[in-house]
């Protein structure tokens, strides 16, 4: 039986990489994508884009026509929709990330042919935990670096509670950097903004330790892996870490490689003699951030806030176990791109795209998905 896919978050970083992969698979009959805040329609053959909103209700904002067809036909749900604004109030993020997940589960329970629900999450649900993080949903009280982490954690708890009733697996992604082949980043996320601040000498310090692991993953590989875990090798009740795992850069190495790549791909940057951000303890970083909040102007305040809403994660060093994911992906036949290979490509793509020359906005970030 060929699958009918229902994909939420199709315009996000992963969604954009996933759609073309789904359309070329012979084991897929049809793909419905749920589009929020974007005109419906699709540029891909075999893909229908329908308007909706996971946060709205248990019908996901679908009109009756689409609702009936999708509930009738869908066999695989891939839930990628999320509000990824790290700095947004937790209530707003909870409404989309936890509330949206709850709505999706209620919707999925009505899909009669459903065989798989793959929900995308983040490895950062581990929050302020340190050490080795297992591929399992664990309640913890360590706290979170930002509201996004917290809202995704809450969503996972909802998923865990429904795993006995519905065929659910959770795929936690680490930070998605860009395409391993050409380095392109579909959307600029916090890490790309942080790199841009470094490029412009607006990133004085980063909390963490020189040895803090920075786990990054390529978008093309992530998309291929998700398709595999959803369609070819679905495993209900599983949690997967789609991440670098053992193949990570230390924070110190990341900054060195960034500097080298800036110089290599924009030789004129060297003459600025911009120092790499200092790696500092969290209290020192917080004192600096507080000072900028108190007296800095908008540009510096914005710059520090960009860093403040994700980088403190590096002050809670951790590694993500990914043996289960590696085993599940063994039959995919695609080797995981190595960070040392694709990181410079992403920097090159950013530099050559004119990313550095765009004016740094001081307005709040837009809803990502």
């Amino acid at each position, binding site marked *: 039986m060929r699958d009918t896919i229902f994909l939420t978050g199709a315009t996000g970083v992963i969604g954009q990489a996933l759609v073309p992969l789904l359309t070329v698979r012979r084991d897929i009959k049809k793909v419905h994508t749920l589009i929020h805040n974007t005109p419906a329609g699709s540029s891909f053959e075999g893909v229908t884009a329908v308007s909706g909103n996971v946060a709205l209700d248990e019908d996901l904002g679908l009109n009756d026509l689409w609702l009936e067809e999708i509930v009738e036909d869908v066999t695989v749900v891939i839930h990628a929709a999320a509000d990824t604004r790290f700095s947004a109030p937790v209530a707003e993020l909870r409404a989309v990330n936890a509330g949206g997940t709850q709505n999706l589960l209620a919707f999925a329970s009505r899909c009669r042919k459903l065989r798989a629900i793959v929900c995308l999450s983040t490895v950062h649900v581990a929050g302020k935990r340190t050490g080795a993080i297992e591929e399992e949903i664990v309640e913890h009280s360590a706290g979170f670096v930002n509201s996004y982490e917290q809202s995704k954690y809450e969503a996972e708890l909802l998923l865990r509670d429904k795993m006995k009733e519905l065929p659910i697996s959770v795929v936690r992604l680490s930070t998605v950097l860009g395409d391993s082949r050409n380095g392109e980043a579909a959307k600029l996320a916090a890490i790309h903004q942080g790199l841009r601040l470094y490029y*412009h*000498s*607006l*990133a*004085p*310090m980063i909390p963490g330790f020189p040895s803090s692991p920075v786990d990054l993953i390529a978008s093309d590989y992530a998309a291929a892996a998700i398709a595999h875990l959803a369609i070819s090798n679905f495993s209900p009740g599983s949690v997967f870490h789609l991440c670098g795992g053992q193949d990570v850069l230390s924070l110190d190495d990341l900054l060195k490689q960034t500097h080298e790549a800036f110089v290599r791909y924009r030789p004129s940057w060297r*003459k*600025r*003699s*911009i*120092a*790499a*951000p*200092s790696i*500092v*303890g969290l*209290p*020192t970083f917080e*004192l*600096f951030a507080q*000072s900028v909040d*108190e*007296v*800095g*102007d908008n*540009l*510096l305040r914005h*710059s520090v806030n960009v860093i403040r809403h994700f980088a403190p994660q590096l002050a809670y060093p951790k590694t993500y176990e990914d043996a289960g994911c590696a085993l599940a992906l063994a039959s995919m036949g695609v080797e995981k791109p190595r960070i040392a290979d694709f990181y410079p490509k992403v920097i090159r793509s950013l530099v050559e795209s004119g990313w550095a020359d765009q004016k740094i906005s001081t307005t709040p970030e837009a809803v990502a998905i």
Partner: protein
Amino acid sequence: MCENSGAFKILMDHSPQPLVGVTAIEYVLGSETVAVGDLETRGLLETPASRLQEFGFHCVRLSREPSYELGLRAARKLLDAASVDPESVEAIFYVGATPLSHAVGTDDPRSVFNYPVAQLQYELELTRAITIGVSQLGCAGLMTAVSLARSFLISHESATRVLCVSSDVLPAGSQREMIYNVISDGACALLVEKGAQKNRILSFHQVTKGYYWDLTTKKNEIAAAYFPTARAIMQDTLRDCGIDWPSVGLILPHNVSLRSWEILLGLVGAPAEILFSDNIARFGHVIAADNWINLRDAVDGGRIQPHDKLLLFTFGFGANWACMLLEH
């Protein structure tokens, strides 16, 4: 002995160098003491006074005298206090952070060539001294001048003494705040001597980053760049001499905000107790003179013991970072 970076360092490493140090320090501040709150009332601050007080600033000293007069008074005070024979001074390095400090101005446009260092040489009867102006280094000027004086003394075998004088007075009615720091008027005179038995220069580092030359458009970038480069230069200076923070007796800072120093200490891993911060509240930032005023006051206050290692750090627009290690 440690020395500046680059080719000069290699040359110095291959030949024994005479010890050079700062043997006498005198300073003069503007005569009017004004509380930070009063500066706000006068419209001379950008940041609320309450915030600057939280950052450690309480008062500043304003001068009605021109910078040259303050410089002359500081230098005369030093020559008298140290009983220096004017004939024994081989050079004067005159430091000013602003162009205004390098001319004894009159209504005549030609007065831009009225150099205060020459007038100082004449007034103080330092007839054998050559005169050199040190400018465009912002608040790093005096530390750089001391390093230049050291090089001068080493390269001139018969020379034994150099007078370094820094003086800056902001024009009346000027803003008294620069990037969240409060500025005083003042002058400082130093005697740099060959064969010095105290405050011997062990190491000096200076980094200039011209990317930050335009203060008016790069204010945020300067504020952000300050910390990582400050950390690097302080670490390099200590590494030069093979020592770490436990071996440093006192940090003699430039008197920027206490908050800024708290952050920098956290960054470099130095304990707060070794920061001599008394003068930040008393008169704030005296342009290029801070480190040396602090050295003088720390000595007078009994905070420094013989052979203590003293780390002096400053930052000047340009942008220039400078760090010197002394042995008392």
